[in-house]
């Protein structure tokens, strides 16, 4: 089973549109889809679930104060390095969005007024779609433990593919290079970096490539909207210098956002580039 993760470093380069188009091609051979952009998930808009099962996502336990026991000494606040404890009316109060769950406060409390309790941080879904199974998630807005949620949906997608004998898992990744991106790339067969022809796009691609390399995941590029600026030759040059293969180039076309606007997979406006990209992917992951 091969796991292909669509990433970009920079946001808004077209990861989700490209993933959806690739999903249409991959579904002919058998694929499990996974949306690992858990705090801004959009793949379901193009590949809607016909039915789905919702599973609560419990992040790490967080601290909770029993105000009746709390003596207001402030030791928990002094210990906490995340600014997660405030003293309000002589009692400790946990700022949930700040608590990272280390449990240090429970240990320094002289009267055992603090305990660690499970916190729900969102949901994840096992869905049936026209293109195959889709595993995706929705972190609560402002929720914690996004990396953990990425790992959860990815594992579920991998297990489903293995169980049902599908050759591919296709992951729509998050932007950036921190914990969610690291979680999405870990263990992947190939990182497909969707890049736009801008200085920012190039800068972000190179940082992403470093992360992928550290994680032992080979990178290949899809140059999206290649003709929207005059910078495409720069991208090609940088890829050549860095040894990153370019799988294909998709031209800028208003038909792509138009397809997205009607909740359609933009397969046609990406033809024939997307077919070439898919055969490059299957070649590289052989």
């Amino acid at each position, binding site marked *: 089973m091969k796991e292909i993760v669509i990433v*970009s*470093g*920079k*946001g*808004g*380069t077209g990861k*989700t549109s490209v993933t959806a188009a690739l999903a249409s091609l991959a579904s002919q051979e058998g694929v499990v889809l996974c949306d690992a952009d*858990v*705090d*801004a*998930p*959009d793949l379901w*808009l193009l590949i809607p679930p016909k039915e789905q099962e919702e599973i609560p996502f419990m992040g*790490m*336990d967080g601290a909770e104060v029993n105000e009746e026991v709390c003596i207001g000494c402030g030791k928990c606040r002094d*210990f906490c*390095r*995340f600014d997660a404890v405030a003293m309000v009316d002589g009692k400790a109060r946990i700022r949930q*969005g700040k608590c*990272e*769950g*280390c*449990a*240090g406060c429970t*240990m*320094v409390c002289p009267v055992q007024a603090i305990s660690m309790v499970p916190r729900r941080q969102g949901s994840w879904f096992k869905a049936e779609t026209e293109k195959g199974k889709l595993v995706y998630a929705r*972190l609560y*807005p*402002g*929720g*914690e433990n*996004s990396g953990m949620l990425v790992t959860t949906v990815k594992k579920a997608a991998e297990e489903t593919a293995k169980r049902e004998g599908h050759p591919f898992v296709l992951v729509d990744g998050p*932007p*950036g*290079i*921190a*914990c969610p*991106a*690291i979680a999405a790339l870990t263990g992947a067969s190939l990182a497909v970096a969707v890049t*736009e022809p*801008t*200085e*920012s796009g190039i*800068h*972000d691609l190179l*940082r992403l490539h*470093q*992360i992928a390399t*550290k994680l032992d995941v080979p990178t290949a590029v899809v140059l999206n909207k290649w003709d*929207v*600026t*005059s*910078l495409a030759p720069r991208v090609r040059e940088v890829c050549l210098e860095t040894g990153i293969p370019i799988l294909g180039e998709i031209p800028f076309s*208003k038909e792509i*956002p*138009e397809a*997205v*606007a*009607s*909740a359609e997979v933009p397969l046609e406006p990406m033809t024939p580039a997307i077919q070439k990209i898919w055969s490059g992917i299957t070649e590289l992951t052989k």
Partner: protein
Amino acid sequence: MTVLAVASGKGGTGKSCIASSLALAAGQVVAVDADVEEPNLGKLLGMAPKEIYSVSLPMPVFDEKLCKRCGLCAKECRFNALVQFGDLLPRLNEGLCHGCGVCSMVCPHGAITEGSHVIGKVSRDQAGDLAFLEGRLDVGCPNPVPVIKSVIDTAKEEGDLIIVDSPPGTACSMVEATEQADYVLLVTEGTPFGMADLKLALEVVSDLKRPAGVVVNRSDLGGSDPEEICRSHDVPVLARIPFSRQVAQVYGLGESPYRGSSLWREQMDRLWNSVKKEAGL
């Protein structure tokens, strides 16, 4: 002091492009790149920032002689950042360590001290009245939040008006960059993706009780408009900016379109006036 955050749920909607333009329109301002995973604001502003300090997390260092290999530190670490086997010293996985200090507190033998582990840096540059600060996460470090906090704290010591270019999403890093803002400008685009992510971003902003406004970039591509979503959150749509190939080209070259496109400049001057009015500046 006023802090304005330029944020979005969806990435690539034009945050940095708009943040750079508002900074140039404002003139005397501290512009902050808090998108520490992929910082691009400096380039758009024509800045060449130099490191002023590094950001680090305290991480455990073990004393070979004092450590009795009891394994308590590893047992109490909730992030699974420590493992301890047999006669070996505990081993730290730096990527998982949050620097919480629990291990050194629980060690019964005083065998753990804390060293600082660099995870990123803050850099600075200035051009006339425009000061620029950039946070940059080191590649391979998973936790951007301390770098975001650090660069914003530094900016607050520097000026009266601060414009923060925030990271995308609706998770911890976006919260860190927006929670202390006096006003949040959410940038979206006219696609269903833009709308879905704007809804989530508006939920964060209303949980944080921050006043906000919305700007729709490339408003003519994608057939969607946030009027209704915004009304339900009682947040105004301050501007709708159609796609322009010329703006895309200037941005592509790494220059703020505020300098390279007179059309964009007019749109941004108008947006800046609305933001000032809304934010009570």
